[in-house]
């Protein structure tokens, strides 16, 4: 795969990732807040309109009650006049007019009462009032016909009048009382509802506050945790916390973008460090190649010079030598090329022992130039680890080169590969150099930390090494005693399932 297609694919990944995040249904905090306030507003409107309607009803009810009271007054008046007539023979005209008035009130308001009053025997009242009025008219007729004021069957009419009158008064009074009662209840209601509403509002606000703040705090806490994870060198993208899209989605998208940027920068950093290391190594390798090439040249020239004097066996020996030395050259170049090769970031099952051995070989030329022996000790039969060959090689090479820089005369570097605890293997790189001061030791994995002069650092920083090892779910530890030793311990989990093989 060419770098271009890799880049294109990377872009596609980014696009797909962002699409996934951005295509979720939008449910933003802005919208949520607006929704909350809108709910408050609607509630207030409902309560206010309700109150207005109720007050309007009360107003109507008051008019109704007043009308009934007037009606009742007229009826009672009529009955008084009627009584006077039977006692003293007077006031019949007055009774008639009062009754007519009551009739008028009833006629005028009966429709209205239907709307605003409680359902009751209003028809009864009207009927009885009409009958009452009829009896009075009849009585008036009789009075006019008999000038001596002697009215036949007067007691009969009186009885009817009494009966009808009492019925009307009873019904009307009852109705008025009930209307009064209702009015009173409504008034009570109008008084209480705002209080209830306030209490309700209070609890609603508490709930809203808690709900919203929880909605804010949870993703914030989540992001804080995620940044801690990122700071440890894990650059896997942040997973969205919710099914829908909100303002935090934007933050997540931004963080993911930053992560990709960081990762690509780190990769190019690793790449550039690698190139620098390759530069150093190539010089060593170019020199290292001179030995087999020299052997080939000497052998070929010897054959050329002495061809006729050589026995067949000697000739075969020489040709075998040439082939052997050619293989050796290829091996030297291959090891370097393997390290230089474009990084594909594939995870394979790796024999850690041979990986470390190859790495040691790469560094050996440098070590030989400096006259520093590197002792390699690999525990046999170790299970493989799952990892990125090149990146791991780079980490080990970096540690070995650091060790080379740390030791002086009589320096010794020991590399050990063995079982660690449980499911882990460890690669230990120990040098007997100057060591690391205790106050510096905790900081050696910090980014940009270096003890070497500017431009002199050869490897990739220990922080990048740690990032690589973290990605392999392993860890890297350092231990040192100034003036005595420094040990770097790289601990990697071995491939699960391979332990019993």
């Amino acid at each position, binding site marked *: 795969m060419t770098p271009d297609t890799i880049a294109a694919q990377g872009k596609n990944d980014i696009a797909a990732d962002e699409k996934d995040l951005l295509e979720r249904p939008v449910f933003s905090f802005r919208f949520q807040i607006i929704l909350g306030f809108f709910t408050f507003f609607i509630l207030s409107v409902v309560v206010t309109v309700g109150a207005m309607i109720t007050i309007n009803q009360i107003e109507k009810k008051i008019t109704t009650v007043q009308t009934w009271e007037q009606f009742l007054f007229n009826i009672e008046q009529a009955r008084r006049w009627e009584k006077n007539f039977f006692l003293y023979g007077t006031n019949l005209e007055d009774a008639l007019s009062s009754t007519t008035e009551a009739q008028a009130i009833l006629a005028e308001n009966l429709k209205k009462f239907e709307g605003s009053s409680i359902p009751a025997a209003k028809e009864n009242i009207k009927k009885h009032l009409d009958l009452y009025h009829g009896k009075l008219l009849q009585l008036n007729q009789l009075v006019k016909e008999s000038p001596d004021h002697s009215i036949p069957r007067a007691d009969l009419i009186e009885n009817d009048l009494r009966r009808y009158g009492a019925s009307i008064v009873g019904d009307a009074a009852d109705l008025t009382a009930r209307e009064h009662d209702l009015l009173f209840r409504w008034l009570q209601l109008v008084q209480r509802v705002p209080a209830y509403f306030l209490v309700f509002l209070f609890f609603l606000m508490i709930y809203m506050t808690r709900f919203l703040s929880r909605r804010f705090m949870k993703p914030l806490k989540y992001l804080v945790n995620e940044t801690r994870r990122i700071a440890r060198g894990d650059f896997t993208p942040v997973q969205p916390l919710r099914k829908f899209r909100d303002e935090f989605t934007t933050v997540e998208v931004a963080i993911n973008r930053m992560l990709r940027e960081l990762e690509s920068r780190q990769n190019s950093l690793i790449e550039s460090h690698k*190139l620098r290391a*390759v*530069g150093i190594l*190539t*010089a060593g390798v*170019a020199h290292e190649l001179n030995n087999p090439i020299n052997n080939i040249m000497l052998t070929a020239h010897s054959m050329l010079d002495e061809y006729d004097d050589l026995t067949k066996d000697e000739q075969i020996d020489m040709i075998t030598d040439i082939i052997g030395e050619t293989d050796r050259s290829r091996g030297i170049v291959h090891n370097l090329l393997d390290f230089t090769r474009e990084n594909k970031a594939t995870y394979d099952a790796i024999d850690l022992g041979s990986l470390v051995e190859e790495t040691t070989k790469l560094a050996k030329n440098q070590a030989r130039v400096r006259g520093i022996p590197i002792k390699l000790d690999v525990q046999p039969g170790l299970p493989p680890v799952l990892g990125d060959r090149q990146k791991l090689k780079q980490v080990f090479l970096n540690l070995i080169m650091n060790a080379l820089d740390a030791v002086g005369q009589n320096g010794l570097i020991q590399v050990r590969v063995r079982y660690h605890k449980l499911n882990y293997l460890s690669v230990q790189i120990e040098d007997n150099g100057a060591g690391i001061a205790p106050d510096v030791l905790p900081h050696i994995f910090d980014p940009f930390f270096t003890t070497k002069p500017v431009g002199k650092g050869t490897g990739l920083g220990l922080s990048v090494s740690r990032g690589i090892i973290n990605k392999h779910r392993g860890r890297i530890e350092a231990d040192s005693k100034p003036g005595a030793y420094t040990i770097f311990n790289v601990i990697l989990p071995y491939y699960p399932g391979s332990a019993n093989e």
Partner: protein
Amino acid sequence: MSTVAILSKYVNESRKIAEKTAFKLGYPLVTMTDLVKAAAKEGNVTESELSGALTDITLYHQLFRKRKMKLVSLLELALCGFMMEKSIVFCGYVGYPIFQEISHVLQVLVLGPPEDAGGRAGGKGSGKDLLSDDKILKWFKKIYQADMEDPNLYDLSINMWHMDESEAADIIINTLKQPRFKPMTYSKKVMKDLQLAFHIKTKLIEKMPDVAVKSHDGTVYVYSKAFKRGQKKAAGTKQSIMWMDGVDYVEILKDQKSFDAV
């Protein structure tokens, strides 16, 4: 085949020291003028054009950089020729990249009074050896991107303020007696490689001003940024130098790092 290379911005003073040294050692003295003559003959260019490349440090440099690089390269090739032929004392201000590579070159820096007292040092307009004074430093910086008066680049620094040319020559000769400046098979081979490299560089530099050439035993490595742009350029370059004398194999390198590593 020993070489004493005397570099200085004090043209007249260093020239006197060089003459004395050459005389005492019995070596011929090679000056910038000799280089110009030899290069003119070798490269088929006029002496005045070569002298121009060595003197002008402003407009000419900007406008005709490629041509100037070629001329400088020609001069360096001529210097290689002198160095290959016999033991010499060289006095001038080209050849820095050659001297750095060869173990049997004694590199001498001649310094003047700390705050150039003017009157005594650097006779202006002496004309004999082209540039004078600080112009040399500027020229050197422009061509080699290095500070000519950086003592770290030299085996020996002589401050002529403290001595006459005869004493200076004695110091140089005594230093040259140290075994480390003795020519040997290896350094002669490096010298031969360098001569071939400069030969090829001179040929290519006008087309690719950034071209860098190395040679090991007839295997030639060529690097230029231009090779990244097209196969054609690389193939053409390879063709053009493949048949030169002393070239067995040509390797075109497209990145600086691989070139540095070989």
